[in-house]
């Protein structure tokens, strides 16, 4: 049996009266995520098993074939971050012996476990029956699940995705993953869930996934318009929610992306800018590409620093963290296991430096961006390494100015608002000044 999420179509009259403005699709995705927490909280009572897995390399379609309720630890951590709960959780984990330099997603999650697994919505989350360690480039994932396994003594199955060190996917890499799926992952899931694997069911989910993926790509690429109707980073965080978590493959997700795409199409037709928490952005002054996740604990303050200055993020690598679709990849029902392999291999976290640089340069060009901004994450040892080199290379290739700021995922202590605002304002003024100079040069 599958999880059915009751979705109330967003109606203008039903919107809560709040100062913060959101698109209908943003409200819808919040409802969906909350419903998933509710579903998770009651899973064991309903006799269902729970699988935990990570966002990059999330094999949602496959996991659903075994009726698992799905829990995503990074999403839990970021939701706790956005709800201002992570600071305490991190300190609890540190008290339990985890160092200051450990990934703060991990510490937030461990802190949540120590506090009795009370999830972001206040509901108690179940202990997982299966840890599906789909490894796609972040080495911390292994240690993270090792810690959870140690605590809960639950079944763990690992899917190892080879790194795209040479910048390409080979047939043997694909075969290697398919072999693991067939010989280890699927049998383990059958055993833990007691449900027999049905490849046709997988195919059906994948058909739904591909439809949602098509719409997501259209939405994200709408930022090529001027003005951009969306913010491809802060806004995209809401857009990627369903597809990167427990919903990809479900008709609900397909429906969500259909609603979203229509909403955005309408904005493009009306030449509208993105919706920000303070209303529609009226003047687009700067178009940026961003690398690195946002800071979650001060998410809205961080966003405000952009829209107050008329800066819109037209594209971000973070919006691809749960799957890179804009290069043409789609889940393929005709080759289900191979397509899962390609999905994992193509995750942003599994790309080499040259691939990441190419991707950013391509975005800079296709989205007509004024510059690149890197938000480097203090506690992320996997992805902060090399970011300055990427920055320099992108600067060199595109001739566009780049800037580098540092903050953290969910540790509120590492977000220095005044400093970041200062850097951003300097950066925007730098773009403006360079543009003015370029204008003078062109005029002459």
């Amino acid at each position, binding site marked *: 049996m599958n999880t059915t999420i009751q979705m109330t179509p967003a109606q203008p009259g039903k919107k809560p009266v709040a100062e913060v403005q959101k698109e209908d699709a943003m409200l819808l995705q919040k409802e969906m995520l909350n419903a998933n927490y509710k579903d998770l909280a009651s899973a064991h009572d309903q006799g269902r098993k729970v699988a935990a897995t990570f966002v990059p390399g999330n094999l949602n379609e496959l996991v659903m074939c075994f009726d698992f309720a799905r829990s995503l630890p990074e999403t839990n951590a970021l939701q706790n971050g956005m709800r201002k709960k992570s600071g305490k959780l991190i300190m609890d984990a540190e008290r339990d012996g985890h160092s200051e330099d450990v990934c703060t997603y991990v510490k937030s999650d461990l802190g949540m476990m120590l506090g009795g697994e009370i999830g972001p919505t206040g509901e108690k989350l179940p202990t997982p029956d299966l840890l599906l360690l789909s490894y796609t480039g972040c080495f911390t994932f292994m240690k993270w699940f090792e810690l959870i396994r140690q605590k809960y003594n639950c079944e763990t199955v690992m899917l190892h995705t080879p790194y795209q060190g040479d910048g390409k996917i080979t047939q043997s890499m694909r075969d290697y993953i398919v072999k693991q799926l067939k010989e280890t992952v699927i049998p383990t899931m059958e055993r833990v869930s007691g449900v027999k694997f049905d490849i046709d069911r997988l195919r059906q989910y994948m058909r739904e996934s591909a439809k949602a993926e098509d719409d997501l790509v259209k939405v994200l690429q709408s930022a090529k318009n001027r003005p951009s109707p969306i913010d491809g980073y802060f806004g995209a965080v809401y857009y990627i929610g369903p597809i990167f978590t427990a919903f990809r493959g479900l008709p609900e997700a397909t429906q969500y992306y259909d609603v979203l795409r229509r909403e955005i199409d309408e904005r493009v037709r009306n030449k509208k800018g993105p919706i920000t928490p303070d209303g529609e952005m009226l003047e687009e002054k700067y178009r940026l590409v961003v690398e690195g996740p946002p800071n979650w604990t001060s998410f809205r303050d961080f966003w405000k620093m952009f829209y107050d200055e008329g800066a819109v993020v037209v594209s971000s690598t973070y919006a691809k963290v749960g799957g890179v679709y804009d290069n043409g990849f789609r889940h393929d029902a005709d080759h289900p296991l191979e397509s899962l392999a390609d999905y994992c291999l193509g995750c942003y976290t599994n790309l080499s430096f040259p691939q990441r640089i190419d991707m950013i340069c391509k975005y800079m060009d296709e989205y007509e961006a004024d510059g690149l901004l890197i938000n480097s994450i203090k506690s992320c040892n996997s992805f902060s390494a090399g970011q300055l080199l990427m920055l320099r290379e992108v600067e060199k290739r595109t001739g566009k100015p780049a800037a*580098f700021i540092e903050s953290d995922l969910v540790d509120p202590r*590492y977000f*220095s608002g005044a400093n970041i605002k200062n850097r951003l304002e300097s950066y925007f003024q730098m773009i403006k000044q360079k543009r003015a100079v370029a204008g003078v040069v062109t005029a002459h």
Partner: protein
Amino acid sequence: MRCFIGIDLGSTTTKAVAIDEHQNIIGRGITNSRSNYDTAAKIAKQEALVNARFYLFRQALSQSSALNGALEEFLAQLERDFRLEQFLVQFTDLEATCQRNAEGERFGDASKAVLSALSELFQRLRIEAPTLFAPGAKRRSDFFRDIAGSRYLALGEEVAKEGGIRYDMLLNVFDRSIIEVENRDYGSAISANLLAALDRTFIALPETASRADAIRAPIRSVLDTVLEETYVIGTGYGRARLPFSKEHIRSEILCHGLGAHMMHAGTATVLDIGGQDTKAIQVDQHGIVESFQMNDRCAAGCGRYLGYIADEMNMGLHELGPLAMKATKKVRINSTCTVFAGAELRDRLSLGEKREDIMAGLHRAIILRAMSILARSGGIRNEFTFTGGVAKNEAAVKALKDLVFENYGEMTLNINPDSIFTGALGGATFAYRAVVEEGKTAEARE
């Protein structure tokens, strides 16, 4: 006359620069930022305009040849006398404020004794005030809080003892009063103070008194010239507090880049070490910023580090550099954490290291941190300009020179004696460009 003004509201000091229509720097002003940026901006600007008056005095007097050969001596004396007059105005206010704050029930039975101790203390301070501004007098700082405070503390202890009251009662009165006084604006007294200073100067330099009228005339004419604040650009941490619209605000990165370019046209890389941040900026041949890096998550190795060390050593900030220059041995200090620096310092002292050697090690530690930020910004290119308060510190400069040579080889290192005003100069230049090149007019705060 039209003046274009840049104000740099830093975390420690607030600086202002005024330039004229030919982009000549006519005045510089500096004050401590307090925690009140409005007042700091106002006072720095006033100081710059006072300084501009002196610039104009020099021009007018050298044209009038009333002081042939004695112009510099005369102006130096006049400036000291003016500082004394300014000091006395604030000092009188401080005395009245202290008396007011000591009245009432606060000190119970000791009230009367506190009031009379205050009278005695201020009398002694007033007597010694002129010596503070005598030729060659050394002051820890030029800010009223520091000058008045250090003497108040020094004399207060013996006055308290003599008056049979607790020293902390006098300290308490001072702490309450100084904040009020330093946040008051004494701008309206400037002209009167200048004229009063002029009288003092004629007494101090009797040989000039015979030419008093010939000297007074050009000075009066300068005083009658209106220094119009045509356009003001604000930068630095407190910039959002400036009383004008966003159009008048620039990031300090841009201002430092442009200011460094105005000071040294060949500048390609700029290092600025301020109170709470270190900036590495790359500029093009027009002073336009190409890229920058700053310390983000931690202020280790910034100017405050030295401030903290100065406090730990019970020394003035300006005394650290000269002490470090006496070093004869390299003491390695690895931590650039401001808080750990105190522990490092005590540890080395306990090991018997000399203060000057430790100081040199601490200066090197700051510069090591700056080298890493420079590397992040793309390295050092020729010419290299060092700005900010720390550029005034000769030991920091020496450490920088050594490390630049070790890592990048021979480079032209520009350090302007007025480098602390770099951001403000950049701001003033932006103000000039806004009006003269872009035809803008001043806008009120939205």
